[in-house]
């Protein structure tokens, strides 16, 4: 799951031109913006059969690849 998300980010936002670190801030470094976040959420929902609640759409929940995994993990535990 992590690798697939990482690959999506690398291909769509870094254009496959460099690697992405797990703790690299996606928003502060300008890799992803608001529109990018919406695309990323759509990708996660479509590919992993999860439904992300509107209340979870906050930059801090998706700021790094580790944050994304943590958010998805915590919602899996909650459900």
């Amino acid at each position, binding site marked *: 799951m992590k690798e697939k998300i990482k690959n999506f980010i690398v291909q769509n936002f870094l254009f496959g031109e460099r690697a992405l670190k797990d703790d690299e801030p996606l*928003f502060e470094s*300008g890799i992803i913006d608001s*529109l990018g976040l919406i695309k990323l959420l759509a990708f996660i929902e479509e590919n992993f059969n999860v439904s992300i609640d509107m209340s979870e759409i906050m930059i801090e929940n998706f700021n790094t690849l580790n944050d994304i995994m943590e958010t998805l993990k915590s919602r899996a535990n909650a459900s």
Partner: protein
Amino acid sequence: MENLFLYLVSLCLGIFIYWFILPSQWRSLFLFLMSLLFISLFNLKYVLYFLLHMVLVYSAGLYIDKVEQKKRLILTLTLLWLIGNLCFFKYSDLFFSAIVESGSGFSWMPKITFPALLLPLGMSYIIFRLIHFVVEVYKKKIPRSSFIDFGLYVLFFPTFLAGPVERFKPFHTQTIEMKAPDLSSINQGLFRIILGVAKKFIVADTLARWIIPALHTPESHPRFLVLLFVYGAAIRIYLDFSGYTDMALGVSRLFGYKIMENFNRPFFQRNVAQFWRNWHISVYSWIRDYFFFPFFGYRASTLKIYLGIFMTMVLFMLWHKGNLNFLLLGIYHGLGLVVWQLFQEMKRKYPSIRKWSLRPVFKPIAIFFTFNFVSVSFLLFYLDLPHLYAVLIRILK
């Protein structure tokens, strides 16, 4: 200047009592009372008005936190009340003037005048904090707090007049931990205050005295100088606003609070999207989180997302002031952001464009272009459309 001196003396006295006389458990109450006192110096009615809102939002938060039934209804009513109040004070003058104006052509229409409504100082920022609080309570994202701690967050006097709009969680954590500032924090706090005073009162105010009159008479200055005035006017807005932020952050630091930054080198950004992510960060991110994402950003079509980007910018600008200039600013930057996003899509589709845009030589050009794009639009902060037109004609012709 006398007021500034009085403020600095009170501040020093406040800091001394805060750190050296009061036991730590009384500090947040003291700071809360100090904030109430600060606001009452502008108008005692403001204190009562804000307290009313705070009691209402805190009670709504308690209800939402404890009771599952009807919590969405309570949230909706609270939000409607807060937004309604903000709109009433900010835009009722505009609304009533428009009604009177539209009826002025009819002779039978009685001449009506409405008393001018004075927007309570700092109201926008307080309403933003209150909305943030009640929404996050609804989402169960923030810890429970006492009314005093909540009140301190809402009215915290260093950020009362011009922000930043700090988020509750980081602020509340600092209230609970209440660490005494070390020497480095004190140095940083004092440095930010001095920097802010220099930016606002020395550079920005001096620039304003030179530039604003000159922009009203562009024909009497050489073209190159007028262009410099345009740049200077944009830089002056930045220095004025970020100067306030520096002072707010510096004073906060002296009371042990590290508040979020509001600006991050905005004039060195490579595109308009980056510019807005680094300009007035706290309010722009607030509007993104509480307007763009809930209304446009959730499982939306591409068209809806573009509309959302555009509307977010229009709303952000109209929040500054409800008039034609700010509407035009919103449309200009909204369209700028949409065009930038379309360009991003093109870069994804066409690797040649992407490679061209990533060339090192492109970076300074992009920064210069963004600076010009923003500077021209910021003339709307100062000038009406005929004067703006005259400035542009002077530069271009």
